[in-house]
């Protein structure tokens, strides 16, 4: 299916870019007239996915993060966060609530659980040593019928 609109951003895995990424995502999806709650959910899932790249994928190093957002027919947003970092050995385990490899930094291990509960679907593709792509699908309530 062809997207109705699309944007891609590339930025470095610096923690100060977490705010930039979620704000940009919210600004781009604002054209769908989301509710305050939906906009907050979009900000949150992007923040979680980008933080994973900063904290885990590029641990102790700086790499490139690609944020791609596609607006699909049916008021659906597809958010893709891609890194070329260390990859995840056991995706199933990484997605378990409360599982974290960084408890010292007070990471709660809730990143994927939050992404799942604030969206309509999360897909993770990861190759150790190559990187990870997280794809989040979110269907917005239809408030204006022309999209």
């Amino acid at each position, binding site marked *: 299916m062809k997207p109705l609109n699309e944007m891609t951003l590339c930025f470095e895995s610096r923690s100060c870019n977490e705010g930039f990424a979620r704000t940009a995502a919210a600004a781009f999806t604002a054209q769908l007239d989301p509710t305050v709650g939906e906009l907050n959910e979009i900000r*949150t899932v992007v*923040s979680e996915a980008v933080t994973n790249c900063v904290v885990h994928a590029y641990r102790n190093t700086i790499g490139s993060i690609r944020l791609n957002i596609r607006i699909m027919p049916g008021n659906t947003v597809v958010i893709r966060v891609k890194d070329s970092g260390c990859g995840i050995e056991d995706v199933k385990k990484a997605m378990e609530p409360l599982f974290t490899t960084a408890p010292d930094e*007070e990471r*709660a291990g*809730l990143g994927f*659980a*939050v992404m799942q509960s604030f969206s309509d679907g999360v897909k993770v593709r990861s190759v150790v040593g190559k990187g990870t792509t997280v794809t989040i699908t979110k269907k917005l309530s239809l408030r204006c019928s022309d999209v």
Partner: protein
Amino acid sequence: MYNITEGVIILELKSVQKGSELTLYLRGEIDHHSARKMRETADALIHQKKPSLLKMNFSGVSFMDSSGIGLIMGRYRTMLLYGGKLRVVSIPEQIRKMMELSGLGTLNILERSRQDETTE
């Protein structure tokens, strides 16, 4: 009063001491980037004042991701070590959703929503 300014995100923590009650007013957006500074400031204040009750006031928080859960859980543990208690107060609705999802509700540290209070 503590002011920490980083980029466009302004964080502010200020303390009000009523007896041994310490209130931390958190401001701005809480994410992995800002949580570290908030954690350091909060812990420095806790160690200095050693309150029996710590209140974390979220009225000025406009955004929080799961980093905020780590921030709360960490302070909960710190207060337990001191034999003190933690209360999380003035929680905006959007942020309450995140807190309840994380299971923080079971610790009985969250102030109930105005909605819950009026239905009683």
